[in-house]
């Protein structure tokens, strides 16, 4: 039999097969695996990382929210948050507050785990890793303040927060819940590591990291650890940024533009609200709205009137003329990230607490002068420490009514015994829920759908 034929054909087959690998190695279009430093740069630009998840739910828990008419037959996540239920979601439902944050952490972990293996400039790698550490710490900041007890140095070593996940492989085991102490240490260490390699400025894109962005997150972290002087120190440092500590003057700012974050220089580390978080509007408490000075420009810019709504009318009684904030409607409505004003408020709070009233009032007035028409502006002046302190807290509420910080403020004020009971009433003035001082409900339970996958995981009270 003609052996040479067979050999020839087998040879042909071999040549064909060896050509295969080249044939198969084509990059698909429109999508890619992360192969270069530039890929990771684009990766950090992802829109989802520009947003914080679960903001509407957090807002529903605050004393800024009001849900009237109350419809007892509708009990969804927003209603449960509004009445401080133990669990806000069913076993089969996803909690955006938790899963959204961990999704963003997944992005950062993917970068941190894989960037060393790809080709590219070593300095750029370091910078991107630093940005990822900053972004990850910022997400854990929200998680620790939702699922961990308010920071108390006496119990922080035993209070449980959330698992500190550092892997991006779906097949790895989830670590146990870190303690509040541990998690704060991880976050602060990560930020300190990051600062060395972060760029000096993020003026081109305020959603990206910078040294000053890291300082502002450190300021927030220390504020909620109630280490006010350290918080103020970092706040001061964050304001030493190129471009300065300018507070945007709201005179002439159009509602349609506000607070189009990239256009406002007052953003230090910009973040928007994740529009996929669920409940898209938070209706503002009418008493809170009334407490604004009617000439305060923030009132008109932050809140929508109920009738001329762009929103789902099923959730809003169009005749009630009520104000609400579109916390879930995304980037252009709510400023979730750190701002110059917030840093100034942190400085002011520390000053007020240490009875440096002049410094405190200066910070407050530097903000307020930009929040009123010149004709309506009156500088604050007082020699009463408590009055100034209350002004600081009030300005925090006016400046950041619907970005989630109020809930965290309520937690720390409650730890200091400064938070009265919060009462929810329905349209007939019946009390439907009360958040008592020192209530366990100030700390959320880990959602059921997370507990199901981690059967041994202890939950909060």
């Amino acid at each position, binding site marked *: 039999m003609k052996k040479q034929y067979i050999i020839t054909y087998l040879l042909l087959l071999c040549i064909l097969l060896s050509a295969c690998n080249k044939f198969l190695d084509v990059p698909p279009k*429109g*999508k*890619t695996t992360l192969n270069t430093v530039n890929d990771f740069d684009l990766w950090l630009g992802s829109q989802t990382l520009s947003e914080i998840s679960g903001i509407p739910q957090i807002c529903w828990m605050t004393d800024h929210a009001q849900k009237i008419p109350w419809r007892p037959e509708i009990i969804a996540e927003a209603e449960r948050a509004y009445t401080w239920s133990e669990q806000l979601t069913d076993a089969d439902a996803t909690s955006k507050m938790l899963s959204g944050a961990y999704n*963003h952490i997944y992005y950062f972990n993917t970068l941190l785990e894989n960037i060393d293996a790809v080709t590219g400039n070593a300095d750029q790698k370091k910078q991107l890793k630093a940005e990822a550490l900053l972004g990850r710490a910022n997400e854990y900041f929200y998680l620790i303040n939702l699922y961990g007890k308010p920071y108390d140095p006496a119990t922080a070593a035993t209070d449980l927060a959330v698992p500190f996940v550092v892997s991006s492989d779906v097949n790895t085991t989830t670590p146990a819940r870190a303690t509040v102490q541990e998690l704060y240490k991880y976050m602060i260490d990560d930020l300190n590591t990051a600062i060395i390699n972060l760029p000096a400025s993020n003026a081109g894109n305020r959603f990206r990291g910078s040294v000053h962005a890291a300082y502002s997150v450190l300021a927030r972290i220390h504020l909620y650890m109630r280490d006010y002087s350290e918080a103020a120190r970092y706040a001061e440092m964050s304001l030493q940024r190129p471009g300065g500590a300018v507070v945007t003057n709201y005179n002439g700012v159009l509602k*349609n533009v506000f607070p189009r974050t990239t256009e406002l220089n007052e953003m230090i580390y910009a973040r928007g609200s994740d529009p996929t978080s669920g409940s898209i509007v938070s209706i503002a408490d009418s008493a809170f709205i009334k407490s604004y000075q009617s000439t305060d420009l923030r009132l008109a810019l932050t809140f929508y009137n109920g009738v001329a709504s*762009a929103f789902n009318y099923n959730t809003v009684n169009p005749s009630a003329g009520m104000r609400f904030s579109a916390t879930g409607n995304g980037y252009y409505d709510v400023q979730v990230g750190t701002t110059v004003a917030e840093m100034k408020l942190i400085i002011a709070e520390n000053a007020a607490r240490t009875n440096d009233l002049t410094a405190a009032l200066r910070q407050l007035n530097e903000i307020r002068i930009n929040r009123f028409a010149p004709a309506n502006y009156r500088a604050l002046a007082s020699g009463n420490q408590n009055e100034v302190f209350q002004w600081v807290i009030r300005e925090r509420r006016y400046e950041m009514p619907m970005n989630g910080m109020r809930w965290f403020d309520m937690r720390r004020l409650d730890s200091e015994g400064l938070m009265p009971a919060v009462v929810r009433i329905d349209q007939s003035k019946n009390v439907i829920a009360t958040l008592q001082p020192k209530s366990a409900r100030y700390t959320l339970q880990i959602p059921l759908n997370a507990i199901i*996958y981690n059967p041994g995981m202890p939950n909060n009270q």
Partner: protein
Amino acid sequence: MPSSYVPKLLFIMKLTFLLFFLALMQASATTFGQELSIKEKNVSISKVFYEIRKQTGYDILHRVNELNTNATIPANFKNTPLLSVLDQIIKGKDLEYSIENKTIFIRKKEKSLLQNVIERFSQIDVTGKIVDANTGNPLAGANIMVKGGRKSTKTGAEGNFVLNNVDENAVLVITYVGYKNIEMPAVSNLGTLSMEMGFGELEEVGITVNTGYQRILPQQVTGAVSQIGTKAYESRINTDFLSGLQNRLPGLLINNDIQFQGNNLFQIRGISTMTGNPTPLIVLDGYPTDLSLNDINPNEIENVTVLKDAAAAAIYGVRASNGVIIIDRKKGVAGDARVAFRSTFSVRPHDNYSKFRYEKDGSVGLNYFRTRWEDGNISTFANYRTSELTGAQSYLTGFASDAALNLLIDKSLGQLTLAQMESGFADLASYNNSDDYEDYFLRNAVTQQYNLNVSGGTNKALYYITGNYLKNQLNQRNNDNHKIQLSGRSNIMISKKLSLELLTDYNEAISNAAPITDISRIFADERFADADGNALPIYSGSTRAGSRFTTATQAMGYLDQRMYPLTEMEEVNTRQRVADFRVSANFKYQIGSGLDFTLGGIYESSATQQRRFASENSSLTRTHINRFTQPATATTAAIYNLPRGGYLQESQSLLRSFTSRAQLTYNKQIASNHSINAILGAEVRQRITEGARSATFGYNDQTLLQQPTDYNRLFNSSTTFNSNYIYNASGLPLGYNDLFAQQYNDDRFVSGYMNAVYAFKNRYSLTGSIRIDQSNLFGTDPKYRYKPLWSLGAAWNIDRENFMQNVNWVNAFKLRVAKGFNGNISKESLPQVVAAYALNNVTLPAYSTLTLLTPANSGLRWEQTDNFNVGLDYTIFKNISGNLDFYNKRSTDILAKLDVDPFKGVSPALVNQASIRNRGVEFTLNADWLRKRKLNWNTGLVFSYNKSKVLEAYMPKPSIPQFSSQALATVSSQAVITAAAGGYMKGEPVGNIYSYRYAGVNATGQALYFDSKGNKTILTSAIDEGYGSLDSRGTSIPATNIGLSNRLDIGNFYVFCMLNYYGNFVVRTPIPSPVAIRPIEGSGDYWKKAGDEATVSLPSAAYINTNGAAYLANSDRFVMNGAYLTLGDVTVSYNFKDFETMKKAGFSNFELKLQASNLYTVGFNRDNYSLATGSYLKKYITPTYTLGLFTNF
């Protein structure tokens, strides 16, 4: 007309003349008047002849050996006419006589000229000689047979043969052990034919099993294979390819009445994937095709083979999990050109809504609507009324037409008295627009098809050229499509060893679609045109808005965006053009000693262009314009950010794919007892799809001009447009990505495969196959690229054993067992993170970013199906055959989007975790109950039963003990319903349906349901037992399907009839809700006041409106047995080929078929609802009538 027909035609003319002449002659013979008288009891014929000569003077001549003149006949002749005497003499004998010039000739009867003529046309005697192609030596003992018939002969010692009386259209098959078969049309002198050595096709003709890669003798097949040939396929008239296979092949489920996950059922042996493609792989003329099934011309089917288990299909590797359908199209046969022309014409009447299950009483919906606003929601109504009047928002979606709403508003504004309003409502209730709807929007659907093909050639070069034109006028006006298909196939012997098969196809399909609002979305009291025939708006569709709202918004500069159905169908047109091209070439080189080398490939391309134009007069365009309009204020005019004018959306998609294949085939008989049929090959395959979409505004289709549009302002600016003026703005596809998009996809595969069949003594056979597929899908790690898929099978032909030789009634009895693995792919996940490019719109300017598409999954694998099959093939009593198969398919590692631990950050993620089992039985019976020369009765029975079970999949989690005190901790029954809608619930069959246990109505009009303890409860999110509130009702996919076909042939006539049964499944039916736009029968039977609960069957309208969708619609009251039976087809056919006029006209075949499809159906449930009607609302089935002409000449 081919030249060979010209002499034949002349010949016919001559004969006609001759026949006419003879007829005249016979007429003269009848005037012959001689008489004879003989009176004797028995007289010998010689005596009679003597008397004739004596009495009449006529001589008689005859051949001695033809007539025994000593025989006697009874003679009682008295003046008997001579002809009668002669008749008596030849009576009962094969003789005839003639009279010429006083001489009577008696001779052996010859066939009448007419008979001769007919037989000369249809029957020929074939002669020829068979020799070996290489040596030229005559082959003695070669078998020559008529294909599909019984006539056969063998060659003599010198290789010569004669085969008498062969139908001239017959195809001869010449076979000789060790040589390749020859197939050719019968001609009287075939001359010398050369047969070539080869082992490929020494089997009986027409019953080899084609796996697409090789042909295997049926007795050697170990896998589950079903086949249908031309005769059975063409028993009915097929206007599309798939309908001809419906219920003809066991295990193949084709059902267009039932959908699973939005697709019509088209599957083999159940569903074994979740995210992959669940349909079978289609192999056309040897290569998998990526083109649409519509490209397969039903007139071209030679046979269709279905490969169902691993032994049969493993050779197709990772795409074979769902089985393989192999289509062989007709090929040319050597000989004179043959022409076939076919034409079909079918009509399907439009729907008759007066026979639908719609509520006849027009006041049911109106009454509900009135009670709703008048009794319950006066204050809300006032708010809504105000916002509608001021144009603030179009809220009024209160389940009534604009006219009904206006009556209420007019009354509330004091513009109508109560009596006027009452009479207004009475007027509305008395009108029903269903007749008008039929007149304005519907027509009878008509399908016309013309098919012409020419084939022929010599043994060295064969050709087959065909053209097909199909035109469809659909039931909805302004909706139609047409299609042209051209195909050429040739087979060329380049040299004695090298042959080339070349196939090309071109298909072009063009369709026009115009929007016709479905009647279910139109209130029954709405009119489509006023008395003058001007179009009127209706109050439904995506831009529902009332007349008052429109008046108010028009004052602000908005356009009238209401839907005018009569205008819309003229002003909006979607035109789609699909051009498909396919070419394949196969070189085959015979190396010798049973070894062949094949090198071939196929290239396919498909280009789809879609063009949707909506003029400015359409509701569609106006709504788009309004969407981006800034309304006029006291001082400024309205700003139209979208230019006024037409809206044009164009999209195109392009598919290109090629497969090339190199294959060695070894087919040899070793000694007398062993035979091997093996293949070894490699395949490279690439498939590229790309697409693009773009939109143009302010476009004028006449001037071809378009206005510039500021997209930045529309989509990227800070300006928010107020969507209050756009009812259901979210339903408008007008995001930036809807207008502009690009898409590109490149899949590549490299595969190596081997298959071997070893047979011993023709009794036992073993098969084995292995295939390795690599693709570019799974990144670079070989661990994920290589996945060998294999199969092993064995068959035992019991009937060939010695002990069976005395069992005469068993002709074939084969047992086969096979096991192996098929694969399936889903390209949605990789072991690394896959990121997609996306714009980040948060920042200004929007810039490109990468966003997570699928997370890293280090455990990713191919899906695979472990396939086990036991089968039995039988032929008993010569005329009954069939098979019986049992299978167990276990698909594991199925990729499914499952919830994963939320701490991992990527839930839900695609993971290889799901698993599905399919088990089933298939049975076929094919019986020729009668098989006479002109009479044949054939029955085909196909029975399939498939039972699926999802072994592992996502399930809503039941309660966890530590939270059992909380109602929240229990999974809600609603979550179970939602999850079940996905189709895969652990422990249940695929497509399982859950239902609540309906327990009637309580005193406040709320629906009650039985809880797990049998108590009647109200269901709310707080009162809910999760799984405990529900019953599992079984699958929504028919588990049993039966097809029964009968065909009775009487001569040239046949009747064919097909019965289909689908059973063992459940179906959901809609709630008769008064809230519906067009309420269905029984909608009035709801709770209205206390006390009604004793008599009515439905809860209050308020309950239906709020909880109806969640609970009532999912209750067991609206789940019923879906089993149904249809009389699918009745086809009658007569072939006029034996009519002389047809022969004169040159037709060798002239068949007229008449078919009625979907004649009758019955549903085996309470409502006699059969899914074959297409909708629960439809009580009857609409038949399709088809007339077909099938000719050959």
